[in-house]
Every structure is written in C-alpha cells, then in structure tokens.
C-alpha cells in the first residue's frame, strides 16, 4: 500500500507501472484478477467560468494519515490485495492529473466498488482545498464537492 501527497507533476500511468514493478512479489502472485483505477484531472471550466489554474492546499500529516485510514478501511471491507493513492498539491494547470486511486483485487466487482468508494471518501473527507484562478484573473475557493453517486 502506498499513500503519497506531492507537489511534483503526476503521471498516473508511469506511477502505476513503477508501483507494480516495485510490488512485483505481491502483485505478481497469480492472485490479482482485477485492477480498477481512477484519475481525476483538472478541467478548464467550473460552474460556468473558465479556469486557468488551481492551488491545492492540504493539512500535512492529517491528510496522509486520513488517506491511509481510508485505504485500510477499503482493503478490509473488500479484501483488496493492494491500494495506491497519490494526490497532487501546489499549483496546477488545466489537464494536469490531480489524483490517482488504484486498487488490486482478485475479483472485478470488489475492485470497482472499492475504487469508487475510495474516491468518494477521499473527496468528502480528506483535508484538501482547491482555489481556482479564473480567466478574469480573480481567484476563488471551491466551496463544496458535488456528490458522486
């Protein structure tokens, strides 16, 4: 299991490749039948306005611990073989990946449900905050995430 909050650019496919290589003993055991992943990326629009950039803030320590708790809860609940969460903070531009959630499981049902649950839990509970820079030059804090079910 790996949890990372980073201000480095995130390439989700390279991270997945690298993580599977690093975990090759566990993930190459013949038990994995399903890998579900989700990547959230930055759009250039929100609530009818053009968005040119974003600042992502977090609560160092609490954020990582909370993500770790969520990953452990999902692992227990769905019997996952492994889980990976990487979340960007700092300055982002449109099209930049913001978050990667990946889960490894023996069965596809469990992988889909766990991946989606992790994303919703992350969005509703993990301490991150987005500030949008608008085309007008103004900036605004995003006030609330929309529900995803």
């Amino acid at each position, binding site marked *: 299991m790996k949890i990372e909050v980073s201000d480095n650019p995130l390439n989700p496919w390279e991270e997945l490749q690298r993580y599977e290589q690093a975990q090759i003993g566990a993930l190459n055991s013949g038990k994995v039948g399903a890998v579900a992943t989700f990547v*959230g990326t930055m759009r250039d629009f929100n609530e009818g306005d053009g968005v040119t950039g974003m600042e*992502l*803030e*977090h*609560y160092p*320590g*609490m954020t990582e*611990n*909370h993500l770790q708790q969520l990953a452990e809860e999902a692992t227990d609940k769905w019997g996952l073989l492994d889980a990976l969460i990487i*979340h960007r903070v700092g300055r982002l531009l449109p099209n930049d990946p*913001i*978050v990667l959630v990946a889960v490894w499981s023996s069965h596809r049902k469990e992988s889909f449900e766990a991946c989606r649950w992790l*994303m919703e839990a*992350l*969005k*509703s*509970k*993990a*301490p*991150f*905050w*987005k*500030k949008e820079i608008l085309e007008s030059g103004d900036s605004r*804090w*995003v*006030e*609330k*995430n929309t529900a995803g079910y």
Partner: protein
Amino acid sequence: MTVSVKFFASLREQMGCDGATVEIGEVATVADIWLQASGGKAMPPNILVSINQEYCGTNDPVSSGDEVAFFPPVTGG
C-alpha cells in the same frame, strides 16, 4: 494549558493567519478554543474541526499540548 491552533484554506485567509498558540484554563472544548483563537468571532457554519489530526466535534474536550485545527469543507480529488 497551551493548545496549538491551525486554520486552513479560506478560513486561514479570513483569519489572516495560519495558526496561533492559545493559553486557556484546564477545562476547555474545541468551541472554547475557537472563541479565544478567533477573538470572539461566531464559528462559521459547516466548519470542520480536528484534534491531533483526527476529526472531532466542536464540543469535544481539549487537552494540554493538543493541536486543534479549523477548516472549511474539503474539496480535494
């Protein structure tokens, strides 16, 4: 007792600082800490609070040395 207070995101900007150290009597709740740290401001609705980096309620008791954080609804992912 001494409690460390943190503010994040829009709340940090509204308060004009990212944290403070609060001196308060031995029996205090999160709400008491807010009142002292904010100089008596009303607590915004929907505010989230944590003690030592775990979510808690505004009436939860605080102990000396605790880190108490206040922040707006989260918007990651």
